[in-house]
C-alpha cells in the first residue's frame, strides 16, 4: 500500500521544472503562432481559428494523415505478430540467448539517419545488395526512387527491420517470467500447443505487449528521419508522412501559422490514441 504524502511533490520538482521548460514554453509558442498571421519583422495579427480550418480542410493534410495512418497500421499489423512469433521460437536458456538478444537489439541503437542511409545503400538498383538481387537475380524491375509501391514496401520493410526487435524483446521478457510449473500443469492436462499459447503465454504477455503496441504506435506515428533520408518523401508525395510534411511547411516554406495549427492537430491525435492505450494499460496494472 502506498502512503499519502504531499511532500512527494518535492521529489518531483526537478523533473517538473526541466520538462516544463522544454515542453510548456515551446508549446505556448506553437499555440501563439497557430492563431496569428505574420509578415515577418515580428509583426503579428490575430487570425483566430482560420489556420485550423484551413489545415483541416486542405487536401494535402488529409493525404498526409491518410498515408500516416496506413503506415502505422501496416507497422502494427506486421511487427506485433511477427515479434511474438520470433519470441516464442527463441531459446529460453543456453549460450545462444545473449547472442540473440544482443544482435536483435543492435538495429535499435543505430542513429536514425544512418538507418536511412544504410537502407539507401542496400537498395540501390545496380550496386546495392537487395537492389541487385531483385533486379538481376530475380529479374524484377525494382527502383524505389521511381516506383511509389516499391518506395512504400521499402520504408515498411526498413521499419520492420529497425523495430520488430522491440516487440521481440518485450514479448520475450514476458515469456521468461512464466514459471515452469504452469507448463507442467498444462502438460498434465494434455493441453494443445494453441491452448498453452492462448491461456498461459498470451495472458502473461498482456502487459508487455500493451507497452510494445503503445511504443510502436507512438514512434511509427511520429517517424521522420528514416523515411526522410531514404526517400525524401518521394517519389512525388507518395511517402510524405505527417512529420515530413510538417517540417516541409514549418522549416521549408516557413508558413508558421498553418504549421503550428497542423502541429497542434497532429499532437492531439497522438495524445488521444496514446491516452486510450495508457488507460488500457493501467487497467491491466490494477487487476494484477
Amino acid at each position, binding site marked *: 500500500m502506498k*502512503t499519502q504524502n504531499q511532500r512527494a511533490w518535492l521529489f518531483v520538482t526537478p523533473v517538473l521544472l526541466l520538462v516544463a521548460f522544454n515542453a510548456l514554453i515551446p508549446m505556448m509558442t506553437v499555440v501563439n503562432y497557430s492563431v496569428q498571421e505574420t509578415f515577418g519583422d515580428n509583426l503579428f495579427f490575430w487570425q483566430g481559428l482560420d489556420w485550423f480550418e484551413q489545415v483541416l480542410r486542405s487536401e494535402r493534410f488529409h493525404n498526409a494523415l491518410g498515408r500516416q495512418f496506413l503506415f502505422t497500421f501496416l507497422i502494427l499489423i506486421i511487427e506485433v505478430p511477427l515479434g511474438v512469433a520470433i519470441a516464442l521460437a527463441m531459446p529460453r536458456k543456453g549460450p545462444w540467448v545473449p547472442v540473440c538478444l544482443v544482435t536483435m537489439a543492435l*538495429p535499435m541503437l543505430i*542513429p536514425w539517419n544512418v538507418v536511412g542511409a544504410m537502407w539507401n545503400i542496400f537498395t540501390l538498383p545496380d550496386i546495392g545488395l537487395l537492389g541487385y538481387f531483385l533486379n538481376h537475380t530475380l529479374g524484377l524491375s525494382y527502383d524505389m526512387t521511381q516506383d511509389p509501391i516499391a518506395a512504400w514496401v521499402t520504408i515498411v520493410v526498413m521499419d520492420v527491420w529497425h523495430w520488430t526487435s522491440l516487440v521481440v524483446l518485450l514479448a520475450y521478457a514476458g515469456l521468461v517470467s512464466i514459471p515452469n510449473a504452469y507448463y507442467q500443469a498444462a502438460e498434465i492436462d494434455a493441453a494443445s500447443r494453441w491452448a498453452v499459447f492462448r491461456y498461459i503465454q498470451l495472458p502473461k504477455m498482456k502487459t508487455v505487449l500493451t507497452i510494445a503496441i503503445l511504443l510502436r504506435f507512438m514512434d511509427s506515428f511520429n517517424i521522420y528521419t528514416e523515411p526522410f533520408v531514404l526517400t525524401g518523401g518521394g517519389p512525388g508525395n507518395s511517402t510524405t508522412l505527417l512529420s515530413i510534411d510538417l517540417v516541409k511547411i514549418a522549416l521549408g516554406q516557413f508558413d508558421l501559422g498553418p504549421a503550428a495549427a497542423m502541429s497542434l492537430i497532429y499532437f492531439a491525435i497522438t495524445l488521444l490514441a496514446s491516452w486510450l492505450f495508457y488507460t488500457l494499460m493501467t487497467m491491466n496494472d490494477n487487476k494484477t
Partner: protein
Amino acid sequence: MRLKSLVPALYILFLMLPIYWLVAMSFKTTNEILSGFSLFPQTWTFANYREILTDPTWYWGYINSIIYVSMNTVISVLVALPAAYAFSRYTFVGDKHLFFWLLTNRMAPAAVFALPFFQLYSAVGLFDTHIAVALAHCLFNIPLAVWILEGFMSGVPKELDETAYVDGYSFPRFFVTIFLPAIKSGVGVAAFFCFMFSWVELLLAKTLTAVEAKPIAAVMTRTASSAGYELGLLAAAGTLTIIPGAIVIYFVRNYIAKGFALGRV
C-alpha cells in the same frame, strides 16, 4: 525443435544483411563501388576510415555526439531518480495526472518542437552548445527514465524502506546506501535507454546546432549532399556510429529483456 530455431536464425540473418552491406561498402574504393556489384570488397582499403579519423570536422562530430549524449544521460537519470521514488512509494494530489503528463512528452512528435526549440534556445543564448541538445533530449528521456525506474522501484518491497527507518537511517543515507544498490540494474537500464534515444535522435540535435556542437549524424547528411556520391565515406562513418551502441548493449545484455519491458514483468 530444429525447425523452431530456424525462425530466430532467419530473423537475425535479415537483421545482419543491411549492416553487412554497410560495413562491406566502407572497405571498398569509390571506384569499385561505382563500377559494379561485388559481394565482397575486391581491393580492401582503409582510406575511408583514415579520412574520417584525420579530418577534424568528421571526428569532432563523434566527440560532440558523445559529449551531449553523456550529459543527457547523467541529467536524466539524476532528476528521474527522486521523481520515480515518489511515484512508486507515495500517493499525492495529482500524481496520476502528472505521470500521464510526463508521458505525453514522450509521445510528442519531435517535428512539432523543432522550430520552437530553435527559438527558445536561441533566446536563452544556448544555441549551438552541447548542453542545449542535452537539455532538449531531456524532453523525451526524462519521462522514459521515470517510467523505467518507477517499474524497477515498485518491484522492491516497501518493507525495505520501513526497516531502514526503524534502524535509524536518515532518508538520504537510506536512499544512497540501501535503495540505490537494490535497484542498480534499473539504473543501468534507464541510463542505457537515455543513451540510446539521445544517440539515435537527429532532428532536434541538428536543429539546435550549427558548428560548435554539430553531431556526427548531421555531419553525415551535410557530406552526403555537398561532396556528391562518396558512398564509401558515408558507409565508413555509418559503421563507426554502430560501435558505441554495440558496446553499450554488451554491458546491459543480461538486463536487456527486462529493461525493454520497463521493469514491468
